[in-house]
């Protein structure tokens, strides 16, 4: 066999397990992106409002998260919080850690997205009697989201890959499933190639979609 000890028989046998692991990975990535989107929108807006305290809080959050490894963040949530009296099931810890992590990256994306909307849009909305919140919600954010859709897609792709770190807290996502098969069969190549394949099957179509979205937005930019 050319590649290590790739075993086609074993491969077929473990496909359902890997597929299940991939679903778990997808579930964690989707949930964390959604929560991350909420956190990111809030902190992205905190960054641009005229309030030094909120600005500082948002900046600190983003810097801390971006400046520390995701693995450490996951372990702090999983091992640290219980010692502070907060015990969460692994699933919740996993989503929490990933959401806090992606929230910081998405906050930066949202901030850039809001700043990409011309100032005149907010002014026109305010001049018609909309409150700041209404103008944000109905005028600025929809345009910001349209502009940052590709960046959000990339963030989602990154999260699919990064969620493999959840394997350290015993969440049965794709990577952990692969490792467990290895531990039982002592065959590394078969499960790990399978794992890689499943990651690719999730990320490749998404990358295509992001490319497509990028081209479309670039295609009809308007003033």
């Amino acid at each position, binding site marked *: 066999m050319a590649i290590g000890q790739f075993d086609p028989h074993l491969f077929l046998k473990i496909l359902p397990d890997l597929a299940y692991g991939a679903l778990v990975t997808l579930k964690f990535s989707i949930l964390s992106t959604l929560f991350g989107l909420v956190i990111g929108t809030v902190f992205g807006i905190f960054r641009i409002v005229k309030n030094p305290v909120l600005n500082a809080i948002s900046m600190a959050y983003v810097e801390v998260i971006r400046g520390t490894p995701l693995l450490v963040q996951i372990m702090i949530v999983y091992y640290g919080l219980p010692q502070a009296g907060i015990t969460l099931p692994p699933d919740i810890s996993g989503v929490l850690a990933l959401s806090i992590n992606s929230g910081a990256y998405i906050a930066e994306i949202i901030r850039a997205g809001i700043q990409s909307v011309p100032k005149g849009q907010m002014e*026109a*909305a305010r001049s*018609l*009697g909309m*409150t700041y919140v209404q103008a944000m919600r109905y005028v600025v954010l929809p345009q910001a989201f349209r502009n940052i859709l590709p960046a959000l897609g990339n963030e989602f792709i990154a999260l699919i890959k990064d969620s493999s770190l959840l394997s350290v807290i015993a969440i049965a996502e794709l990577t952990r499933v692969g490792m467990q098969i290895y531990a039982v069969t002592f065959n590394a190549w078969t499960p790990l190639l399978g794992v890689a394949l499943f990651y690719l099957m999730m990320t490749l179509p998404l990358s295509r979609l992001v490319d497509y979205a990028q081209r479309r937005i670039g295609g009809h930019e*308007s003033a």
Partner: protein
Amino acid sequence: MSLLEIIDLHKKFGNLHVLKGINMEVDRGEVVVIIGPSGSGKSTLLRCINRLEEPTKGKVILDGVEITDPKVDINKIRQRIGIVFQQFNLFSHLTALENITLPLRVVKKIPKEEAERIAMRFLKKVGLEDKASHYPHQLSGGQQQRVAIARALAMNPEVMLFDEVTSALDPELVKEVLDVMRQLARDGMTMIVVTHEMGFAREVGDRVIFMDKGKIVEEGTPEEIFTNPKHERTRKFLSMIL
């Protein structure tokens, strides 16, 4: 009593003193044209009237209500003061129709169907009922500006502010926008118009105000200002642009 009264209005940006004590009154149905060199503070004055810029000092009084009072609900007041900008500022993710219905629904809480009826009425008024479902990037500059005017009018304001609304347009598109404004003046709308279109100022303006360096230098009927300006600075400005 005049509809709009501005008393000793000042605006500073940091150390830059942009408005230095503006006093003016605008009567109901009056069309006041403001002219003046670039940087004289015309836009800032308009933007202070609906508090897109906060005045540093002074008062703006609309129909007896001091709107520069910090206690006043500015979002309520802004519904009564329409403004149209040089850069149109149509909401680029919405169709022409939705540009008009959005503020009606969000601000005035008018139900969808009725908001659409109102929007169509104003699109018709500016001659664009057939463009209702077009997005801004599918419209010419002149058409965008007419939608912007319709959007402001649909809120049923008592006074309309126009800030060089034809300056960003190709020359052949200027007329269609001025025609809409002309009609509006004829219908009795109270208007404050900042413009470089002297022909329009002459024809439509009831009064012309010449501003320079943050102050009103002189004001009068179009006749007085254009044929017989009293101040040297006014004469100089007019000779430069006429």
